[in-house]
């Protein structure tokens, strides 16, 4: 037993986040930590990482009771955490980020750039990743940044590694590389706490599992005896119904047609169409150009050439303002960066995309606004203390519902959703799927970009597969299965 946490309790402003929680870790094991959002997983691990101090409880590390007062102290004790939110500095290189705060110097004065670059290269090679150590973080995809973050933690000689949803942003291929690496570290005696919402990936890599619910410890057991469904039920505390709702909307006329859309080097000659009532998926690996394609379609980026037809007429969308006016909505993959204004409250975020609806002659009609917002809060089951609650106090799932509500308020006809359920727990996930299906059933249309194949297969009428900026094909019905999609996505 390398680590034991006993009777841990923690409250924030009177709200109990953890109550009498126990957790332990054996040497060289991978221990899964699961629970819905708000169950207390992250809080528990932040206590271990020295970010929060527990109100009550004891931490025993290697047989000795310890008090972990700061992240720095936690690192010294051999504990490293890889956060959901990446902590990299965008305008510094991969190597500089890896050695941030422990730069190697020559004679204590000059930065030993060469040494750091070569060590970084060595580390990245272990991942089988062809990243340039001199590349700026800002130029990397989110998936690549995550890899850098993991490499950074590993470079600190951690004995205990906490991974907070490491695969949430990774492609299947990258995730498999990560699993391989986890097994390798396990053999070397590193203990790993593995937090994930993707229950199916636990089986292959984890030894034991601890389930939390509402800040309390539910169970700790060997993973072998449990099925995915049993884990999900223990997490939620009730029987879960079918994840994906039945979608049998009537398919109507063509809403959007795209021909030869190009923006080198991100994507080239992309043709596709979306009809009313359809849910259309876009599959592909990270870097396939799906997000870039959607951003260009939405007017965020400029296309080099190609035509876009909206309800049969040629349109030029030069900026998001014009896209919104046509009836497009875009829930971006980066909720905190481009989806929400984190400093604003729930109400203001929800009405941001359609000011006309809540105003007359540019004056805001506050009562009307709060009525519109209250309706959506109830309709979508958004959990918040009040309509004026700061958006940053909401859980990830509820924040995502606000993003969706924002576009529902604005009378969107074609809704583009980029990774709509990233980092969102089982319960909220199925609610979001229900919303997507209901939206399509109303005669509108949805484009779903997702790295999770079960999600695309469960929701979509048709799936376009992209590979390196080109549309490789379109799958529907029987043809649409994981094997076919992966074959196209990897360019086979």
């Amino acid at each position: 037993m390398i680590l034991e946490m006993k009777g841990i309790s923690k409250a924030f402003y009177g709200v109990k986040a953890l109550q009498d929680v126990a957790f332990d870790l054996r040497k060289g094991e991978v221990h899964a930590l699961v629970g819905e959002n708000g169950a207390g997983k992250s809080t528990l691990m932040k206590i271990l990482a020295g970010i929060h101090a527990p109100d009550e409880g004891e931490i025993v590390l290697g047989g000795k009771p310890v008090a972990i007062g700061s992240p720095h102290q936690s690192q010294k004790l051999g504990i490293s955490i890889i956060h959901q939110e990446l902590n990299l500095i965008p305008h510094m290189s991969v190597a500089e980020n890896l050695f941030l705060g422990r730069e190697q110097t020559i004679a204590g004065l000059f930065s030993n750039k060469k040494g750091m670059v070569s060590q970084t290269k060595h580390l990245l090679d272990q991942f089988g990743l062809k990243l340039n150590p001199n590349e700026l973080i800002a130029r990397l995809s989110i998936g690549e940044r995550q890899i850098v973050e993991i490499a950074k933690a590993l470079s600190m000689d951690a004995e205990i590694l906490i991974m907070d949803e490491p695969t949430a942003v990774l492609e299947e291929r990258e995730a498999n590389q990560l699993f391989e690496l986890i097994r390798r570290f396990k053999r070397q005696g590193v203990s790993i706490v593995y937090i994930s919402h993707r229950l199916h990936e636990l089986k292959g890599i984890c030894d034991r599992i601890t389930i939390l619910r509402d800040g309390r410890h539910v169970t700790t057991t060997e993973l072998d005896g449990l099925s995915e469904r049993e884990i999900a039920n223990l997490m939620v505390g009730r029987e879960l119904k079918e994840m994906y709702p039945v979608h049998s909307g009537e398919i109507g006329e063509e809403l959007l047609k795209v021909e030869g859309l190009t923006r080198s080097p991100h994507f080239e000659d992309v043709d596709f169409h979306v009809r009313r009532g359809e849910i259309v998926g876009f599959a592909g690996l990270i870097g396939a150009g799906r997000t870039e394609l959607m951003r260009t379609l939405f007017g965020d980026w400029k296309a080099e050439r190609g035509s876009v037809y909206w309800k049969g007429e040629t349109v030029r969308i030069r900026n998001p303002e014009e896209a919104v006016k046509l009836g497009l909505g875009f829930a971006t993959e980066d909720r905190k960066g481009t989806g929400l204004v984190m400093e604003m409250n729930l109400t203001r975020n929800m009405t941001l995309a359609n000011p006309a609806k809540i105003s007359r002659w540019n004056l805001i009609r506050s009562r009307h606004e709060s009525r519109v917002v209250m309706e959506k809060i109830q309709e979508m089951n958004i959990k918040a203390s009040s309509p004026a609650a700061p958006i940053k106090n909401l859980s990830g799932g509820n924040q995502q519902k606000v993003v969706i509500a924002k576009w529902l308020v604005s009378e969107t006809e074609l809704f583009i959703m980029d990774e709509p359920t990233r980092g969102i727990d089982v319960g909220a996930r199925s609610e979001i799927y229900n919303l997507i299906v209901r939206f399509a059933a109303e005669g509108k249309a949805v484009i779903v970009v997702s790295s999770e194949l079960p999600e695309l297969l469960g929701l979509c009428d048709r799936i376009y597969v992209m590979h390196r900026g080109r549309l490789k094909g379109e799958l529907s019905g029987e043809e649409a299965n994981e094997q076919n999609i992966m074959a196209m996505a990897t360019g086979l």
Partner: protein
Amino acid sequence: MQLSNIRTERFQRWIAGNKIFMTLIVLVFLASVTSEYFWTWNNIMNVFRQASVIGMIALGVHFVVLIGMLDLSVGSILVFSGAVILWGQNLFDLDIPGSFFLGAASGVVLGSLNGLIVTYGRVPSFITTLGTMFIYRYFMMWVADAGAVSGNRISHTFLGHGYWLGIPVVVFPLILAAVAAHVVLSRTLLGRYLYAVGQNSRAAFSSGANVRAVTIAAFAISGMAAGLGAVLETSRLNSISTANSGVYYELDAIAAVVLGGASLRGGKGTILGTVSGVLMFSILNNYMNLQNVSTYLQGVLKGLLIFLVLYRQNRLRED
């Protein structure tokens, strides 16, 4: 009982959100206790009168700071607009309303120019307005040969020296402008978007906001406020010095806005805060004068006040 609880809670939250206003009240109290001349009608009116020009400018600068930008050209716009107003008087025999119109219009033009350079030219606001700060002022100095421009309508000085209901006339435009600014920020779409752009312009853009228009509007409002400030400034002597008027006004205005609790990173700050910031500086100057403190030392103390208040605000925020 319940209702009164809610009221107290609201009141407490209001106080927590308007700490600078509370600090202002404490300052007024201290000044009144330690100086027998301070809390007299005439002196308080003096405080307001002295605050009027910087106050007007600061209200405009507030809009630019709100979107996370700076406007250093307002002192120069004041000179430019001041000269335009006085020539307008001489040429067209304009009275006070005409002066306000000319001041606002010329200010909007110059401010919009700033906004256009920032948005379409993609030049950072600091650089843009540093450039136009020189251009606007030196252009007028070149035209007027670095001398003063004077007006011939003596009725114009009623604004700077007259009283209405025992209150200096010059205070009324400031009050009107402050109320208008507050309404724009809290009740209109423009206000909503100014905060959104200041807090996360990427998210505002992705939600379909016209970020460029919002930015240009902020600079236009800042320019307009400087133009209105020019009306007040010229009404004192019915003249403006192209070389010496409005020097450092932009910095006084920014200092007042920041002292009022606005963040230079944008997205945060209230009109009540900015007005409180302006009044605080004005009270400080007034009080020092009453106590016969050297004007130069007053500048030093002004700087110290900025440190003190902002240090306390940051401490409180962390708690």
